[in-house]
């Protein structure tokens, strides 16, 4: 059986950044396994601009952003396999994969980085009644058809969900000559970035109906119409508010779910993000298996994916070089989600072995104005930052310093909350 220091599952933005960083941290024996026919992951179909503002201080398209990382992987001659599907990972980091050229093969890794990304929630999971005709697409599938295959999935479109892909696709379909009639959003706020609402909907006079959902799909062969209705504050449709739009296409942008079937096979524990529960090194409960990017939690900007994955690559390199240090991590401190915080990544820290400073990423539960991001180590407030507006669609982060938490005792906890003061 082939042995390898580090196997990275997924050659998208997370996998690429993790590979580069692990390499630069001294690990040369790396293998990236990618199921698609090229590296770059979902970025290859994101041909709009706006990527890389944080990382490169310029606006790149998705493929351009990916190519900067792909170039670095090629420069370093990091090995990768395309068209290769991982079908199993065991607790002791044996990876099983298949591809047409090599068949089925096993690789024993010292460390594994999970970078499989996420998938889109489907119509079925949303429980929308109606017919099941052609013309119902997840926004990402439509994006692939339009941007990579050059096919137009529809001419008259209703979009459910105002997540970023839905917003981007509203503009994209408009560019390609389709008429986007409405974007309906179940929540009273958009799940996407403010800039996308302005640039993708407002600029093209596409109405956004908040607190609305699809309650029926018509059409026996191809979609012929979609009925939407306003919902009350429990999410139930309000009688009398139904409006039917004649259309041939329904695009769904109703949430992304970290893709963790493989993680679960390896015995990785998942948390509230549907991604693995990780510690300060982005290591899962299975020693030597790390996670980063959208498989860990769904990000708003790819820049943060790259940053996080870079850190995971570095952590994996440290693990490979000094497993002893990872075996005895010292005391473990929980990071608790306080008021208005849905989750944090990481979920635990080991002050003894952590870097001097780590990034904690989090999302809020709702839209709030004029709040403070507060972090407490035990009773002591160690972070206090004003946030004029926070929303579930935008990730928040802060730096957690080792010196602020090094004296915590095992029974003490760190709490993160958004508060009035």
């Amino acid at each position: 059986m082939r042995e390898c220091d580090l196997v990275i599952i997924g050659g998208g933005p997370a996998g690429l950044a993790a590979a580069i960083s692990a390499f630069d941290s001294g690990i040369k024996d790396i293998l990236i396994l990618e199921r698609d026919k090229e590296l770059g992951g979902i970025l290859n179909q994101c041909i709009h601009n706006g990527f890389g503002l944080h990382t490169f201080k310029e606006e790149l398209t998705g493929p351009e952003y990916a190519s900067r990382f792909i170039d670095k992987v090629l420069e370093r001659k990091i090995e990768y396999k395309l068209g290769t599907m991982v079908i199993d990972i065991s607790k002791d980091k044996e990876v099983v994969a298949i591809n047409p050229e090599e068949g089925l093969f096993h690789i024993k890794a010292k460390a594994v980085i999970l970078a499989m990304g996420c998938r889109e929630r489907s119509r079925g999971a949303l429980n929308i009644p109606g017919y099941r005709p052609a013309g119902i697409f997840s926004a990402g599938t439509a994006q692939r058809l339009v941007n990579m295959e050059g096919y137009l999935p529809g001419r008259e479109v209703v979009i459910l969900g105002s997540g970023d892909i839905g917003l981007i696709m509203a503009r994209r379909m408009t560019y390609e000559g389709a008429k986007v009639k409405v974007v309906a959003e179940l929540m009273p706020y958009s799940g996407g970035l403010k800039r996308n609402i302005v640039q993708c909907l407002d600029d093209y006079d596409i109405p956004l109906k908040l607190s609305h959902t699809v309650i029926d799909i018509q059409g026996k062969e191809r979609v012929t119409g979609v009925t939407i209705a306003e919902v009350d504050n429990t999410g139930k449709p309000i009688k009398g508010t139904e409006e039917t739009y004649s259309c041939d296409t329904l695009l769904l942008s109703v949430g992304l779910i970290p893709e963790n079937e493989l993680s679960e096979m390896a015995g990785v524990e998942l948390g509230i993000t549907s991604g693995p529960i990780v510690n300060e090194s982005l290591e899962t409960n299975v020693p030597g298996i790390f996670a980063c990017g959208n498989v860990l939690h769904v990000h708003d900007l790819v820049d943060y994916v790259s940053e996080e994955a870079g850190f995971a690559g570095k952590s994996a390199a440290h693990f490979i070089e000094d497993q002893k240090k990872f075996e005895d991590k010292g005391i473990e401190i929980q990071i608790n989600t306080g008021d208005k915080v849905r989750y944090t990544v990481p979920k635990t820290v080991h002050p003894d072995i952590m870097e001097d400073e780590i990034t904690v990423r989090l999302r809020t539960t709702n839209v709030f104005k004029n709040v403070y991001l507060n972090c407490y180590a035990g009773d002591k407030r160690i972070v206090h930052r004003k946030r004029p507006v926070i929303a579930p669609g935008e990730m928040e982060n802060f730096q957690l310093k080792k010196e602020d938490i090094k004296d915590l005792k095992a029974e003490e906890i760190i709490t993160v909350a958004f508060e009035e003061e």
Partner: protein
Amino acid sequence: MYDVVIIGAGVSGSAIARELSRYKVNVLVLEKNEDVCSGTSKANSGIVHAGHDATPGSLMAKLNVEGSQMMEELSKELDFAYERNGSMILCFDKKDFNKLQDLYDNGIKNGVKNMEIIYKDEIKKLEPNLTDNVYAALYSKDGGIVDPFGLNIAMAENAATNGVKFEFNAPVVKIEKGNGYWAIDTDKEIIKTKCIVNAAGVFADTIHNMVSKDKMEIIPRKGEYYLLDKSIGKFTNATIFQLPTAYGKGILITPTAHGNMLIGPTANDIPDKEGTNTTREGLDEVALKSMVSSEIVPLRKVITSFAGLRAHLKSHDFVIEEVEGCDGFFDAAGIESPGLTSSPAIGKMVGEMIQKKLHLEENPEFDGKRKDILNPKNLTEEEYEELIKEKPAYGHVICRCERVTEGEILDAIHRPLGAKSLDGIKRRTRAGSGRCQAGFCSPRVMEILSRELNIDQSEITKSGGDSKIIFGTDKDAYRRAN
């Protein structure tokens, strides 16, 4: 001129076609849709009923028990998924116990074997996820589950291999009696035949009424379902029914032959014979009533919902006969639940009727064996490696949720009566039937279909007809406007 034309390539029509292919006979199956298994046969519970429900003495009772007893053997011959997982009819109230006993007695009269009445402790031991409110159950060890697509497709394929012709997208619009033959008008051509078998499902009345003065009415009775994610595993081992009470017929919970959990169906009579839409009320009813059997049904794990139509006759029995005054015209009508279970017996019965009618001789070349699409997940690692070496397409995973490879999809397209649409591929290989519901694999499957069938992607459909997936290429709208 054909000897026999069968109208409908659902599970009944396909079973009859296969039975007829045992004889030296010239058979054509006409199907109005683009594929076999496109109506009632594709949207049902996938249950092999033991046979205690049907009224003793009815044709339904006879064919149910016969079909159930034939299923295992047939599944080996034709290589489709079947499992004898057992079934339970739950009784929640001591006051209703006599009804449970009645069902047991019915079962005995119908010839059902391996039944017993069990009580709460035993039930909970076999099915720990069921409610504590259960009092007793009629447990039938012979109850089973079957892949309804697999059964239908296997019988049709085997019929085709043995010489039966199939014509798709061929709706019957008119039937006229000629001198010693029938003339069937499909709008495209007139087809002459000595015998007709009407196996048209919810449309069997339309076909019947084209020839008979004695009018038939089939009422589409809609059943809505939820399908749950495989990650749940076997929430129940057996198929769990509820004893019908004054409040209605109840909702079943069952594992499917594919390893999902299925809950449903509702039962509502509707006017539209193509009204396979789900409704809020129907789905809510499924959810609510399923919780009578178990309070912890994992409804958050729904991956899709669907509705099917039962071909219900008021008399609530199968009508399988040569229609009076219509020499050579046979009905196989009113085939509602337990129609799937009964289908092998329906095939046999109609086959024998026509054999007698036309004095058919046996076909010495008949081969009743058929192999299903090779599923690499059933191979050992060594066998799988060998397979990929020989056929690299089996190393190319197309559907990630159900792990379906290009090799399987190619097989589905190129075998007899091969798949032509996304749904055709899905029903044969399961590509697109997993938790992402084809979001990932559909562009990839479209590409393969386009390449293999040598048609443009804009011609590819979800399920034939006007169910096209894409509308030409990008910026098409501008080109059309100019």
